[in-house]
C-alpha cells in the first residue's frame, strides 16, 4: 500500500521555490538550445511570440489534467484512467444526439461524464477498498471500451462551431485554451494552498491513519479527489475535442503517463503527502517545450521520448537525494539487495 510507507513531512516553501527555480532553469536551457540551433527562427520576434503561445496551447489540455492528477497523487492515490476519461467524455459529448443540444449540452455532457467516472473511481477506492492502481487501471480499460462502443470505433467529428472555435479564439491575443489552463492552475493553487480541502489532501496523502484520527473523513475526501481529477478530465476533453474538432475512443493516448510524469518532475511525491501545482505546471511546460525543440530541429520523436524519460529519472533521483541523505539511499539499496 503506497500510503502506509509514506514519510509525512511538512512542505517547506523555500524547498518548493528552489525546485521551481530549477525547472525554470531547465526551461531556459531548452530555449537557449532552441536559439542556438535555429537562430533564423528566433530572430523573428513575431515567430517567438507565436512559438511561446503554441507551446502554452499544446500544454493546455494535458496541463489541466495534470492539476487533477497532482491532487490525487498528493492525496496518496494515482489515477491511471485520465486518458480514458477524456476519451469517454470526448466521445459522449460528440455523439450526434449530444451535439443536437448545442455547445452547452456538449460541455455539460463532458463535465458530467468526467465527474461521474471520477466518482466511480473514488467510491471503488475509498469504500470498495480497491488499490488505486487496480481500480483506475480497470477504469482505463472499461472507459476506453465504452468509448469505443458509443462511437462505433469511428472518429466523431464535431460540427459545432462554438466548440471548434474554442481552439481558435484568442481573447487579448492569447489563446482561450491558455486562459483556461491559467484559470485551472490558479484555482488548483488556491485550493491546495489556501483552503482546508488542500490541507486535508496533504494530510490524507501523508498519513491517512493520522488524518482519520485527526477527524478528517478520509474516505469522503478520497472520493472528492478522484471526482476532482474526473472534472479536470472533462474540461480537458472539451479542450482536446475543440483542438481536434473531433473525438474518438483512442484519443488522449497515454495522457495518464504524461500527467503523472509532469506531476513527478514538478516535485510531487508519488507516495503522497507532498506536491505543488506550480511545479506540475512547469513539468508540463518542460515536456511541451522539448516537443517544440525537437520539432523545430526536425529531430526524430524516438530520441525525444528518450530525453523525456531521462528527465523523469533525473527528477526522481533529485528527489531521492533531496529528501534522504546519500547514506540513507545506499542503505535502502542494500536492504533491497538482501530481501
Amino acid at each position, binding site marked *: 500500500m503506497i500510503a502506509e510507507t509514506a514519510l509525512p513531512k511538512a512542505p517547506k516553501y523555500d524547498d518548493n521555490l528552489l525546485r521551481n527555480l530549477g525547472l525554470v532553469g531547465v526551461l531556459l536551457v531548452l530555449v537557449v538550445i532552441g536559439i542556438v540551433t535555429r537562430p533564423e*527562427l528566433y530572430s*523573428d520576434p513575431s*515567430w517567438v511570440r*507565436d*512559438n511561446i503561445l*503554441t507551446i502554452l*496551447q*499544446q500544454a493546455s489540455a494535458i496541463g489541466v489534467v495534470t492539476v487533477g492528477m497532482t491532487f490525487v497523487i498528493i492525496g496518496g492515490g494515482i489515477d491511471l484512467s485520465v486518458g480514458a476519461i477524456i476519451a469517454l467524455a470526448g466521445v459522449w459529448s460528440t455523439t450526434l444526439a449530444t451535439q443536437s443540444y448545442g455547445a452547452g449540452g456538449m460541455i455539460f455532457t463532458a463535465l458530467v461524464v468526467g465527474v461521474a467516472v471520477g466518482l466511480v473511481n473514488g467510491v*471503488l477506492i475509498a469504500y*470498495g*477498498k*480497491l*488499490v488505486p492502481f*487496480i*481500480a483506475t*487501471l*480497470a*477504469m482505463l*480499460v*472499461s*472507459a*476506453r*471500451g*465504452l468509448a*469505443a*462502443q458509443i462511437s*462505433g*470505433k*469511428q*472518429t466523431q*467529428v464535431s460540427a459545432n462551431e462554438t466548440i*471548434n472555435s474554442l*481552439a*481558435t479564439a484568442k481573447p487579448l491575443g492569447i489563446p482561450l485554451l491558455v486562459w483556461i489552463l491559467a484559470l485551472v492552475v490558479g484555482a488548483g493553487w488556491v485550493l491546495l494552498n489556501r483552503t482546508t480541502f488542500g490541507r486535508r489532501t496533504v494530510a490524507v496523502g501523508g498519513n491517512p491513519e493520522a488524518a482519520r484520527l485527526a477527524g478528517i473523513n478520509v474516505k469522503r475526501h478520497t472520493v472528492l479527489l478522484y471526482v476532482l481529477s474526473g472534472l479536470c478530465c472533462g474540461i480537458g476533453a472539451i479542450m*482536446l475535442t475543440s*483542438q*481536434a*474538432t*473531433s*473525438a*474518438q*475512443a*483512442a*484519443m*488522449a*493516448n497515454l495522457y495518464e503517463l504524461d500527467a503523472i510524469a509532469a506531476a513527478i518532475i514538478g516535485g510531487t511525491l508519488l507516495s503522497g503527502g507532498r506536491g505543488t501545482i506550480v511545479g506540475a505546471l512547469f513539468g508540463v511546460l518542460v515536456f511541451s517545450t522539448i*516537443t*517544440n525543440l525537437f*520539432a*523545430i*530541429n*526536425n529531430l526524430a*520523436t*524516438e530520441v525525444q521520448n528518450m530525453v523525456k524519460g531521462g528527465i523523469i529519472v533525473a527528477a526522481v533521483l533529485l528527489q531521492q537525494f533531496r529528501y534522504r541523505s546519500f547514506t540513507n539511499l545506499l542503505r535502502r539499496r542494500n536492504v533491497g539487495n538482501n530481501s
Partner: protein
Amino acid sequence: MSATTRRRLLFGTAAAGAGLALTACTSNDTGDNAQVRTDTGGDNGNAAAGPKVIIGFSAPAADHGWIAAITNNAKAQAGAYSDVELRPVEAGSDAAAQRAALSTLIAQKPNVIVMLPHDGKELNATGLEAMRAGIPVINLDRAFPSAAAYRLQIKGDNYGMGLAAGQYIGEQLKAKGVSNPVIGEIPGIDSLELTQERTAGFNAALATFGFKVANRRPAEFTADSGQAAATSLLQALPKLDALWNHDDDQGIGVLAAIKQANRSEFFMVGGAGSKAAIDAIARDDSVLKATVTYSPSMASSAISLARLIGQGKGLSDLVELQVPKEITLASETITKDNASKYAKLGF
C-alpha cells in the same frame, strides 16, 4: 497475500474484464455502404449461387476508422451473398489473443479463413496451421513471411501510396515553378512497417524531382495526435509549400491545426481516402487538394474472393481457373477532377 488484498485484486480484475467484454461487442451498423458489391445476381457466372461457403473472419479490434471499415465491409459483403456464411471471431487486442481465437476457429473447420493479422510475422504460424488443416487462408493487408501460410494475399500498396503522394506533390510544385520547396510530412505511428514503406515511397518520388522533406512529425492515426503533430510542424516551418499527411482520419486534426494556425500558403495531400477527405477535395475549400487511396474496400473483395476459392472458381476475366495468389491494390490519386467518381468509395 492477505485475504483483503486478494479480494481487491479479484474485484479489480472483474471490473477490467467487464471493460474488455464491452470492447468485444462490435457495431453491425453498415448503413448504405458503397464499398460492397451488391450486384451479386445478373449474368455474371461467378455470381450465381453455388455451394455454401463458410468463411471464418478475424481482424483486430478496431481502434480507428479504417479497421472499423474493414470489419464492417467484410460483414456487409458476406451478407450480400446467399451462399456465404460469415463466422467472425474477435481477434482481441494483441497477436497472442488472435492466435488463440484462430485456433478455435480452425477447429470448427470453416471452408476458408480471411484474416487481417495483428502482425503478419506473429500470425505466420497460425496461417501455416490452417493451411495444413486444409483450410485456404486469405491474408488481408499484413503479409505473412512464409508463402505456404496463405492461399491468397490481398493488400494495399503502402510504398505505392507514398510514391503517388510524392508524384502529385512534385508535379504540382514543378507546375507552379517552385524551385526549392519546403515540404512537410505527417506520418502515422512511426514504428509500423507500413509507415516506413509509405515514407520510403514518398521520399523516392520526391527525389525524382530533386525535392526532399524539410520536416517530419509523426502522429498516431488519431485526430488529436494529428492536431498536435501538425501544430508542431507548422510552428517549425513558418513557410510551407506542400504537406503530405498519411492518414485522412488523423487528417481531421491536421486540418483543424492548419485552421487554428491560420495558415493557407501551401497545399496538402491526404492518405487512405476517407469520405470526409474526398468531400473536402470536391468542395475545394481547404488546403486539402488530393488524397492517395488505401481503401478498406479490400475487405469486401477478400470476402468475394474467399467465396470463389471456397467454390473452386476463378476470376471470370482471367484465363486461369483459380483465383491468383497475390493481389496488390493500386493506390489511386483522388483530386477535384475525379472526386465525384470516388465519392461513393470513401469510408
